[in-house]
């Protein structure tokens, strides 16, 4: 009798866990299907080439927002990648001390910290002091979000390089920094590169830190020093608006960003997965 009950409990738990797993897969497919079905209608040539039109007027596109997202993400990469790689190098090579432990701990918290608070912080230190919203402020807040991802990935990738390479370089009389730049960084390069790609994919979809740093704009930008259109804030404004045409465009932007982010994620997983097996 007891055995039968135990088997029954076991079977039901296993069934539930299968259901949970397939439920997760189902939700992924459900969301992606909605994004594709609702967004595909918005994608056409003018979506990529024209400025937004005022509400009520059909046509137009999100060209300025697409360029803005590229500009701010690119600037964030230029700031965060060297910063993050240097910090990650310290964590991997010299990080077994107080500074290393503190920086590692804070990086791990910063990775999951609420991005909207980073937006508030940049608003206070940049937007408020400069007196206006700007693309620079948006780029810096994205850079702060990327930074801990890059530094922790760099650390992990450097630690994967075995002692043989280090020792052979040092045995040839190379100073430590030559060993790092000439041998270790080269060996860890592809791994760090995929980490950077993942960090880019992560910030490309960020909205909250841009809401009050870069704001939004219906016009072409003349410099990074002015409010700048970007895809995610446009999505937020359009989706919250009462116009059907704007809803469709928001879904179009969602399709664009989601597909880019997922492609990068799958691609890097394939590369990293192949590496791990080796």
């Amino acid at each position: 009798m007891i055995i039968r009950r135990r088997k029954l409990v076991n079977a039901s738990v296993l069934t539930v866990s299968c259901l949970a797993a397939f439920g997760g897969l189902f939700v992924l497919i459900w969301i992606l299907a909605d994004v594709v079905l609702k967004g595909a209608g918005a994608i056409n040539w003018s979506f990529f080439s024209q400025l937004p039109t005022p509400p009520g007027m059909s046509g137009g596109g999100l060209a300025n927002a697409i360029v803005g997202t590229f500009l701010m993400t690119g600037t964030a990469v230029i700031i965060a990648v060297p910063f993050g790689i240097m910090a990650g190098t310290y964590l991997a090579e010299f990080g077994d001390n107080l500074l290393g432990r503190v920086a590692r701990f804070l990086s791990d918290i910063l990775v999951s910290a609420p991005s909207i608070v980073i937006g508030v912080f940049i608003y206070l230190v940049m937007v408020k002091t400069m007196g206006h919203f700007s693309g620079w402020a948006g780029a810096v807040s994205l850079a702060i979000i990327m930074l801990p991802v890059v530094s922790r990935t760099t650390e992990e990738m450097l630690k994967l390089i075995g002692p043989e390479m280090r020792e052979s370089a040092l045995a040839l009389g190379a100073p430590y920094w030559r060993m790092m730049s000439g041998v270790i960084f080269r060996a860890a390069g592809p791994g760090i590169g995929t980490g950077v790609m993942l960090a880019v994919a992560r910030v490309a979809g960020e909205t909250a830190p841009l809401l009050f740093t870069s704001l939004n704009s219906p016009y072409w930008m003349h410099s990074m020093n002015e409010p700048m259109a970007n895809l995610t804030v446009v999505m937020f404004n359009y989706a919250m608006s009462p116009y059907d045409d704007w809803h469709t465009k928001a879904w179009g932007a969602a399709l664009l960003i989601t597909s880019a982010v997922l492609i990068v994620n799958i691609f890097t997983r394939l590369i990293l997965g192949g590496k791990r097996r080796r």
Partner: protein
Amino acid sequence: MQDHNKTALGDKIFKGSTAFFAAGIAVIFIAMIVVLWQQSQPSIKAFGLSFLTSMEWNPVTRKFGALIPVAGTLISTFIALFFAIPISIGIAIFLAELAPQWLRGPFGTAIELLAAIPSIVYGMWGLFVLSPVMANYVQPWLKHWLGFIPLFSGHGMGIGMLTAGLVLTLMIIPFISSVIRDVFLMVPQPLKESAYGLGCTNWEVVRDIMIPYGRKGIAGAVFLGMGRALGETMAVTFVIGNSYHLSWSLFAPGNSIASTLANEFTEADGQLYMSSLVELGLVLFLITFVVLGLAQLWLRSKEV
């Protein structure tokens, strides 16, 4: 000799400059707390501790109390954890024990891809797809069968606390389940095999061997998901309803700290209003700092 000195100098510069950037991370973190603390001084001076206990948030009368957004943040997070913890453990059992070897990689990737979808897409999906489903099917059903409980009373409009909690559930499942799976995979094989040898069922091995063995890692995973849910902005802003009411009903609209910031920050006029919003941000940052700090401590101690 001179060459040797050059080498030593190069290494010093190398180590020093990397240390500079590592310290930079800590400096950014500390600067965030200091700046938020400074800028919330007007609000801290005006309201003191009553900021955290007052339910009134009124920009017209300049009275600001954070209880409703703080409560909304906590309630939506607890709804999310309530659903996400058992589902994530189920997914982890499936990925670590049940699924055939060839399925584990692709299936695990699919679940992790849920974490890669931008949060604003979750928000739009929650508003345009999930909310109508909730309003037309789920909420009437819950009201019919469980309506005598105050939690499920009132008219469901789709958007509200419950829907926000469910969207958060979907967003944190990939984080929690992939960490728990890794914890399960680290349980030594001999332990599991001895239990199986004694005649334990799969579930008994999970319950009595794997979960106790990995309890710190599991706690870390849960707190990691909790930290994510507390600070999530865009997805919640779309579906929580953005209203300053505290209601027993989970169908009612509410507000969270992050959605309050997203909606009001650019419109805040006057120093006190702005500073109260900054203080809200500070409260959120400190709560997530504690939660994520605990998560890191537990996840680290697992490694040792």
